[in-house]
């Protein structure tokens, strides 16, 4: 390669990631299925991320409510605060904040774990031990990320809404029942389903980029650190790109 420009390197990387993702897509449904490892990764990726995701979700719900209240009061629609917060949380805040936190926690840990496994030849050792490391490591993790992020996002929505409920009640009195009715009344399938579906893609992006970065880690501890770091950066950017695409697609399909 003679004098590779930044653009060339970028395109090279995108091509590599695409090929890696393509390999995932052709491999994940073929036996052998690494069910035990998948379940273990679900536990690590999903369950163990819940406290962090829940905390950020709760704070986002609370803060969003408190931030929106003055404007709502100005327009005289304070009673619609639960409705607007509910829509904001379910449509955008819940999925995206959860995905970003998820990228920070899981993307980096996958990148670092697979990176160090690569560097210390554990991936080779697995291959020698009659295991397809791509299936054992990559497919299980990416599938776990795809399955767990939607659940995390949904739970984060629930916790966020509870935070919003507390936020509404800091400067006013609304029963939980009324709050909940206002939220539900103003939600439609169009709000919930596209938001839910896009979290699967967020999970896929975080998982596949983390694995790609780890799987192609350079030798040495610096390489592992770089893998973890770039996994977070790239997957965060990709989350926003997917979000942008998702809103265009749902708009195009008339779901907005």
């Amino acid at each position: 390669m003679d004098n590779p420009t930044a653009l060339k390197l970028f395109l090279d990387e995108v091509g590599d990631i695409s090929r890696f993702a393509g390999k995932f897509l052709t491999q994940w449904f073929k036996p052998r299925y690494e069910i035990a490892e998948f379940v273990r990764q679900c536990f690590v990726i999903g369950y163990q991320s819940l406290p962090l995701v829940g905390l950020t979700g709760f704070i986002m719900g609370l803060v969003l409510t408190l931030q929106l209240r003055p404007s709502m009061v100005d327009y005289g629609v304070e009673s619609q605060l639960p409705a607007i917060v509910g829509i904001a949380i379910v449509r955008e805040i819940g999925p995206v904040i959860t995905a970003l936190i998820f990228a920070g926690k899981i993307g980096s840990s996958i990148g670092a774990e697979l990176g160090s496994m690569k560097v210390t030849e554990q991936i080779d050792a697995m291959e020698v031990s009659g295991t397809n490391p791509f299936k054992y490591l990559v497919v299980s993790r990416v599938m776990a990320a795809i399955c767990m992020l939607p659940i995390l996002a949904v739970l984060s929505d629930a916790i966020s809404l509870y935070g919003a409920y507390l936020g509404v009640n800091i400067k006013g009195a609304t029963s939980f029942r009324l709050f909940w009715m206002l939220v539900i009344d103003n939600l439609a399938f169009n709000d919930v389903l596209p938001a839910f579906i896009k979290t699967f893609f967020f999970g896929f992006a975080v998982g596949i980029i983390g694995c790609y970065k780890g799987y192609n880690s350079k030798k040495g501890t610096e390489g592992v650190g770089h893998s973890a770091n770039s996994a977070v950066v790239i997957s965060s950017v990709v989350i926003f790109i997917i979000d942008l695409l998702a809103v265009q697609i749902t708009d195009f399909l008339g779901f907005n």
Partner: protein
Amino acid sequence: MSQEMVLNISHLYKSFGNNHVLTDFNLSVYKGENVVVLGKSGSGKSVLIKCIIGLLKPDEGTIKVFDELIGDIDDVALDRVRARVGFLFQSNALYDSMTVRENLEFPLRRHWIAVTQEEVNTMVMEALEDVGLVHTVDMMPVELSGGMRKRIALARTLILKPEIILYDEPTTGLDSITGSEIIHLMIDINKKYNTSSLIISHDMNCVRRASDRVVVLYNGICYASGTYSELIHHQDPNVKQFFEQDYK
């Protein structure tokens, strides 16, 4: 020593870009024989050993392990071959997230060898006994010293009762005493299970003690071949440089 050939490499070529690592490399290993491949860092020793196990694909040439042509066979057959070939990695490659027991169980379960938990336990304990580390069975790899880790890695390689063991620089990164212990263990095991071994090393202590035959890998070819005592008096400077180092 029987004349049954377990490993045959002929006309092997492998290059990374413009870096031609192996050019027309030939080597045969017979049953029960311990062959040491001697070479400088970056001379392609690790590449050679990874080609044998199928981790890397050679550009040209054939590798024959137990009459199976690596590269021509499918994944299932390759796994069957791999179950009969042990590989001791330079960096041990112990799975950090698993205990010693799980590390040892891993290849057993993955190759569908042992079925019942009882059999698995027996084999794990037997392998740990061979390396003298039974008490570490429920420890994590990070809790172990470098020498212990190497021994656990060896135990993991042994557990499948391989017919060939490929050692990738077994003494690198260890102090000389621990290295000696490892070499001693290797020799014991080879005798006990009558395995052939291909040892990649530039540690002359290891070469002297473990080798039945030494192959010098230089410029991508099998530069010289012979027993330790034959090669030590070799006049070629490219061979001599390894042995001179041994005298210091």
